[in-house]
């Protein structure tokens, strides 16, 4: 069972819709028990970093999540804001994050000719082998919408990059902790293959 963590921030149902389509058992939940019993966890999210962190804190799930992710090493996938929340700090709201890996979230620093948010379809170049990215049927492209991006301090954590003005981290992986900046749940078969792989980890 994949538990999609409900911390009162949008975009939960579309993730579940895709799991449903793939025949993967998933549930949207904010229960400590569900998180403990889950095989895998997904931390989705759209919106402001600070709001996301505050909601996570108010959800009273932080202690359970840290235990499951950092000690029991349960696979977790952060999507968009969910990925950013896993970093140590964000420029957005000058706010500390979960700090699950050595990375920070920075605002896009690009020229006036490119628009922010980075919104639309873009390519991802995967830099290392990972169970998340095995056996893709085609060159992947994904739907992005974000104004901030992750910067990994450990090169080894970078799973894939995308170029928009400059190269940034589109996907990371550190042990059991996975994050993607794009929206697999909105990225046709390219996203489906990724979520199916995540379920198989």
């Amino acid at each position, binding site marked *: 069972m994949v538990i999609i963590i409900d911390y009162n921030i*949008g*975009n*939960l*149902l*579309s993730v579940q*819709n*895709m799991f*449903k*389509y793939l025949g993967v058992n998933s549930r949207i939940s904010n229960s400590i028990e569900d998180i403990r019993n889950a095989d895998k966890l997904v931390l989705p999210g*759209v*919106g*402001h970093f600070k709001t996301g962190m505050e909601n996570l804190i108010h959800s009273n799930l932080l202690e359970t999540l840290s235990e499951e992710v950092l000690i029991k090493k349960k696979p977790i996938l952060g999507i968009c804001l969910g990925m950013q929340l896993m970093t140590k700090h964000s420029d957005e709201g000058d706010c500390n994050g979960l700090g699950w890996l050595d990375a920070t979230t920075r605002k896009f620093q690009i020229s006036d*000719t*490119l*628009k922010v*948010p*980075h*919104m*639309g*379809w*873009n390519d991802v170049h995967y830099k290392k082998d990972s169970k998340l990215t095995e056996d893709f049927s085609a060159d992947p492209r994904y*739907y992005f*919408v974000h*104004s901030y991006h992750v910067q990994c301090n450990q090169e080894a954590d970078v799973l894939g990059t995308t*170029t*928009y003005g400059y190269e940034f981290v589109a996907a990371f992986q550190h042990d059991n902790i996975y994050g993607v900046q794009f*929206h697999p*749940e*909105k*990225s*046709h*078969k390219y*996203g*489906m293959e990724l979520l199916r792989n995540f379920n198989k980890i």
Partner: protein
Amino acid sequence: MSLRPRVIPVLLLQNGGLVKTYKFKQPKYVGDPINAVKIFNEKEVDELLLLDISCSVNQSEPDYNLIHEIVSEAFMPIGYGGGIKTIDQAKRIFDLGIEKIILNTSLQTNPDLVSQISSIYGSSSVVANIDYKKNIFGKHKVFFKSGTIKSEFNPIDWALKLQEAGAGEIILNNIDREGTYRGYDIELLSNLNNKIKVPVVISGGASSLEDFKNAIDAGASGMAAGSMFIYKRPHNAVLINYPSFNEFKNLYS
């Protein structure tokens, strides 16, 4: 490298059915929206726009059940517009899994709705749709309520005002060109693009990949089209279609 502009089919909903209009008039039933979305899903479209043209006219609520059914079948970003007047309605739509709320008629009396929604969900989740056409003196005027209510707003000023209010994207929809295959209003697009920071999606009149190319050259971030993707010409038989990714790719190089 800049982003590949998005190519966006527009689906007009009316009382639960899929319709297609001509210059905002003569709505013609063209089929079941769920079926159309399934086909667009298979064709891996960049994004979909769902516009319920019955809501503002009938003063009705969005058809949440229909939206839910559509979203369950669609694995691409979707914008929904039609009948959204309050932040609670917007929340219900977002909770169903829609990425973008499209506002239009309610902004005539309540432009603050843009900032209310964008402050919670982020500006990239709020799109302002601007329907406009020329008056008898050749001046562009903004229309509301599916083109039935004329205002004194000029589309460029209106777009800039809505950008300031927090709209993350503007759809520029030319009523006179809608359904006509005459090509986009490139002149107004490039005019607006010189003044505005947020992405602009152009709509109304598309008939070919060349129209998309012209729009890209004029700065469009997205090209919306209805008839082109729903009909097969010359007889406008209903045939859901969408060019392949490779055909688009050639446009951007």
